[in-house]
C-alpha cells in the first residue's frame, strides 16, 4: 500500500498546501500592497515550480534541456507581455 504513496509526491502535496496557506495571509491580515504582492508572487511561482518539477517530471528525461528552455522562454515572454501591456496601457498613459 505504501508503495502507492511515494514520499516525493506526498511531500510535494503537503508543501503546496503550506504555500496555499501562506498565500491566504494576504486575505486574512491587513498587509501593505508591496508585502502582499511579494507573498503572492513568491508562493505562486514556487508552487508552480513544485508542480512542474516534482509532479510533471520536467527534468526527468534527455529532453529536459528542450523542456526547460521552452518553459523559460514561455515564462519570460509571458512576463514581458503582462508587464509590457501594463506599462503601455496603465502606468505610462
Amino acid at each position: 500500500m505504501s508503495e502507492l504513496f511515494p514520499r516525493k509526491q506526498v511531500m510535494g502535496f503537503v508543501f503546496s498546501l503550506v504555500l496555499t496557506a501562506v498565500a491566504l495571509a494576504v486575505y486574512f491580515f491587513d498587509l501593505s500592497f508591496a508585502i502582499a504582492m511579494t507573498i503572492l508572487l513568491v508562493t505562486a511561482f514556487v508552487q508552480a515550480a513544485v508542480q512542474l518539477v516534482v509532479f510533471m517530471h520536467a527534468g526527468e528525461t534527455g529532453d529536459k534541456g528542450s523542456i526547460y528552455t521552452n518553459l523559460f522562454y514561455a515564462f519570460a515572454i509571458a512576463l514581458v507581455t503582462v508587464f509590457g501591456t501594463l506599462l503601455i496601457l496603465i502606468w505610462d498613459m
Partner: protein
Amino acid sequence: MKIDHSLPLEYSTDQNKLNILGFWIFLGAEIMLFATLFATYFTLVDRMGSGPAGADIFEITPVLIETLVLLTSSFTIGLGVHAMRLGRKNAMLTFFAITLLLGLTFLGVEIYEFTHYVHIGAGLQTSAFTAILLTTLGTHGAHVTLGLFWGLFIILQVKKRGLTPENANKSFIFSLYWHFLDVVWIFIFSFVYLKGMM
C-alpha cells in the same frame, strides 16, 4: 514498433517520446494563452463601469474549496501515474477516477459561482471587468471540462486494452495537462481572487 524496456512505458517508443515533447511545447503555447488573458485581466480589473468590482463579489469559501479540490486532484493524478509506472493498473484507474470526480466537483462549485455572479449583477455583459473575469475563469473551466472527457476516454481505453505503451503515453500526457491546469489555477487563485480581496 521498437519498445525500450529500460524506460517507463510512456517513454518506451520513439513516437511516445515525440508525443510527450510535443505536448510540453503545447504547454508553452498554453502559458502564453493564459498570459494574454492575465494581461487583459490586469488591464481591465479596475474598469467596472457601473458594475461591481472583485472585492464586491468574491467570496473566500467557494474559492478555497475550488483550490483545495483542484490541488488534491493534482496529487491524486500524480499518484495515478506513479501506480502506472509500477504496473498497478487497478490502482492507477482508481486514482484517475478520483481525480476526475474531484475535477467534476471543482466544476460544480465554479458553475455555482458563475450563476451567483450573474444573479448579483456581475454578468458577462455588465462591464469590461466582469467580461475578462468570466472569460479567464471560463477558459480555465472549459479546459477542465475538456479534461474530464479526455480523462474518461483514457480510463475506458486502459480498462479495455490494458496498460500498453500507447495508453501509458496518453495517460502521462493527460497528467501533464491536468497538472498544468492546476498551475494556472494557482495564478488565478493568487492574482485574481486573493489580490482582489486584499
